[in-house]
């Protein structure tokens, strides 16, 4: 049963982002306005270069918008400085990437533990929570392995474990199945659906219509603007 809350988690209004070189200015987001409610699972689709990843980076507070408003949980964050953004991010947002982005020098356990270190969770509590989430992702037996020793599917499960270990309110997933075969891809989508059903808001960028069907709503972008929104029933 998909549960969507009434409270608004994200509201962006007239969001703008430009990429400038010495000669050319490219508009990545052109006065884009979107709202996402708490508990929603939203898929963002569109052709390459339409601004999907740019939008996700701004939503994840990894990048600054050049104009417009971004309200997160009722707070205007568009002009937050690096420190404030980092603080807000580490307490509220988890990320899942297409290329997993695990740190090669850390073991599975240490990779998953990392967000807890940054939020200042005590060591004993960290061990408990990491073990819990590894268990849930069925990757516990690989806790002392390094990322290079795992399959793609296993690496993405570790990445999801890392994204959820801090119990974020929002998960931003950038083509989470892009580097996986269909079987592993489906497993990942099931995991994300489970998380959503437990209350986590998910915004996922994808090229896959199949994956998009797991969401409540699909936002299609073209040239930095919303062209259509499909509500999934």
């Amino acid at each position: 049963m998909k549960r969507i809350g009434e409270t608004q988690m994200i509201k962006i209004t007239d969001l703008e982002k430009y990429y400038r070189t010495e000669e050319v200015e490219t508009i990545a987001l052109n006065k884009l306005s979107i709202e996402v409610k708490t508990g929603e699972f939203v898929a963002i689709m569109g052709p390459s270069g339409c601004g999907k990843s740019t939008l996700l980076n701004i939503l994840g507070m990894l990048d600054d918008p050049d104009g417009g408003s971004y309200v997160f949980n009722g707070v205007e964050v568009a002009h937050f400085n690096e420190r404030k953004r980092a603080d807000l991010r580490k307490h509220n947002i988890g990320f899942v990437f297409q290329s997993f982005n695990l740190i090669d020098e850390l073991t599975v356990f240490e990779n998953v533990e990392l967000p807890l270190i940054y939020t200042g969770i005590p060591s004993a509590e960290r061990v408990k929570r990491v073990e819990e989430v590894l268990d849930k992702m069925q990757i516990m037996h690989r806790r002392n392995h390094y990322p290079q020793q795992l399959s793609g599917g296993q690496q993405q499960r570790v990445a999801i474990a890392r994204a959820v270990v801090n119990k974020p309110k929002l998960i931003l997933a950038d083509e989470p199945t892009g580097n996986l075969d269909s079987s592993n891809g489906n497993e990942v989508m099931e995991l994300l659906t489970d998380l959503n059903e437990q209350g986590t808001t998910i915004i996922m960028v994808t090229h896959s219509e199949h994956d998009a069907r797991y969401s409540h709503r699909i936002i299609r972008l073209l040239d930095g603007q919303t062209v259509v929104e499909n509500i999934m029933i």
Partner: protein
Amino acid sequence: MIKNYIKTAWRNISKDFSYSMINILGLAAGLASFVIILLYLNYELSYDKWDPELKKVYRVSTQINSDILQQTSAPLATFIAQKYYNAEAVTHLMSAGDYKILLSTDEKKIYQKDIITVDTSFLKVFPYKLIRGDAKTALNRANAAILSEDVAHKLFGDDDPIGKTVRAYNYETYEVTGVMQEPASPTHLVAKMLMRDPYEKSNNFWGNFSFQTYIKLKNTATNALVEGDINRIYYTDHLKKDNLSFEAYQKKSQHTSLFVDAVADIHNFPKHGSTNFTTVTILLLLAVLLLLVGAINFSNLSIAKSMRRAKEVGVRKVLGSNRTQLIFQFMIETALQCTISLGLAVLAIGLVLPIINQSFNITLTFWGQGNNLTVIAETAVCLLVVTLLSGLYPSFFLSRFNTARVLKGDLSSGKKGTVFRNCLIVVQFMVSVFFIISILVIKSQMNFMQDSDKGFSGQQVMRIETSQKTREDGFDHMREQLTELPGVSYVSKTTKVPGDLLFVDTSTIGFKYAGKEYRLASIKISKDYFKTLSVPMVAGRMFNDEVGDQKTRSCIINESAVKKLGLTDPVGRVITFPSCDSIPVKIVGVVKNFNTLGFENTVQPEVYTMGNNACMFQSGGAVLVKISGDHLQQTVAAIQQQWKKIEPDFPIQYSFVDDNFQQVFIAYNRLQQIITFFTSVAITISIMGLFALTAFFCRRRSKEISVRKVLGATITQLAFLLSKEFVYLILLSVVMITPIGWWAMEKWLQTFAYHINLGGWIFLAAAIISLCIALLTISFQAIKTAIANPVKSLRSE
């Protein structure tokens, strides 16, 4: 969190072990050199600080017009003790310094240096601890002697020396009343034996300037205050004439005054005279440059490696790390590597210090000698500075990465990073090229000095130490006994032996000629002195047995003296010694200038006379024996045998004048060794850095190289492409350092009266050497990349 940082750092070091080792070893070499120089600086600064009471001790010296004398009048010490309100104790002494005095017991005879003739107050001023005997009474007896531990051991073994007797010069007998502990740090006044002055009570003559005077104050005061006080009482009691006020006298251009040096300042910061401290400061500066070269390697390699760390930075930012935390993480990583470098540097220092101590005759220790706290503090500061120097820029650079871009795989670091990196390479090679220029200039100057005509020949000329008796009254007898030996050509004596750095007399006195005063050096010789050293005459004659020569009515002068006196036809002119206007001394000959003091100074104007019959008594120096023929060893053996008859109580001490003259090069030989060492370290570090850096860039450009190769580029073209950027940078380094190097070397050469002219070839050679070294380093990697199979690289991309 710190645990996580250290863990990541350690794994990164292990993962890139060879590059990490280049980083670490390069820095360790710089650190080791720096710490050694720091230890040397500590050693120099620790002079005369072996007891807190020494802070109150000052040496009094005399200035007569423009002449500086470390010695003061014999009665000055007693005078100050009686008249100066702030004097707690005053002592005067005569130190034999490096001059070796014969000490004998019934069973042993040793030649010992650093023997000091003292008065009863010595231990009240210099707080030596006695391990045997009582410091309060040890110097009370008229023939008392206090020995250092090692001299006591040399003379008496493990026996208790107290109450036993020691003879000095086979003349005076002393009773040992104490054994003193060696001071914990070096001192300008090394004391291996203290002997009570047998003539202490008769030293009342104000004209006797044979003593050094030291005051211990009741309360510490500034030098100026002490000088003001003692000069006022000295003037009032001894110098005052015509009711001239003290202030008016002080303003006169010609006047006598006293000045003081705190003992702790004598070695490094004397008011007058030379100091070693400038050399130490220059060495420290060079060591800082080396450290900088090591730190630059570190920064450059870290930046070069940054593309590997970019993803990690991005992920950490995504997971909540802010920039400060990332900077902190990278600084910890740098600190970890710096600590490892420091550990290796300490190990290297442990291995190198004994060699340095032996080569430079000093006692540097990393641990012990009461300097532990200083060393720990300095090392900690050094580690901090190096960590900041090496890690700060890479940390800021790495933490600045745009998260979104690096996670997308965009690793371009922008122009700013490249410019800064190139600047660092330029600075690094500037330092290396500077060292290469230095070594070429020093080597050329050394060769010039070694090959230059000294103006005399010291080949097969023995220099023999003698007692004053043999040198003066017994000279003719000794000469007869030696000249009868086969192989001995000439026997002569001089008060100034070429190359002698012991008691070398560079002072001049005011000779008079035609009513005017000319400051010339006075040297007493015997008649065959110039023949012994093969010094040619340019006018007049050599000394002979004429009465005028023997009775100091004739003199020979050198070319510098002729110039100073402004004479065109010097032979037959008459000069007079100071205060001897009534005794004329006729110039009978002029000798060609010859160099006795090395090449730093021009040849002094010198007046040579024979005997001590008129005006000025001069002694010291040595006897010179010229040996001819091929049987040097037999002749030396025969001289040794004969010497037992000439001076039965004094075992012969001899050296050769040629070897003796090498002493003037010792300081420069050391400088050359040190600069060679610094150059090798600087070049090694730079090569290591350049090697690693080239490897990184070649790896980064491997795809581009493969594409170019597929499109038809040759290996030479590719190697040139990869090398040219670095070659330009090194050429730029050479261009930038050349004027600085020229200026610095010109300054250094100006300290020599006789020196080479700086030629463009030195700078050209330095440029070629640096370029060759760099090209060899770069081309290895460049060629390796250029000949690699392009398919591999393209597939992996």
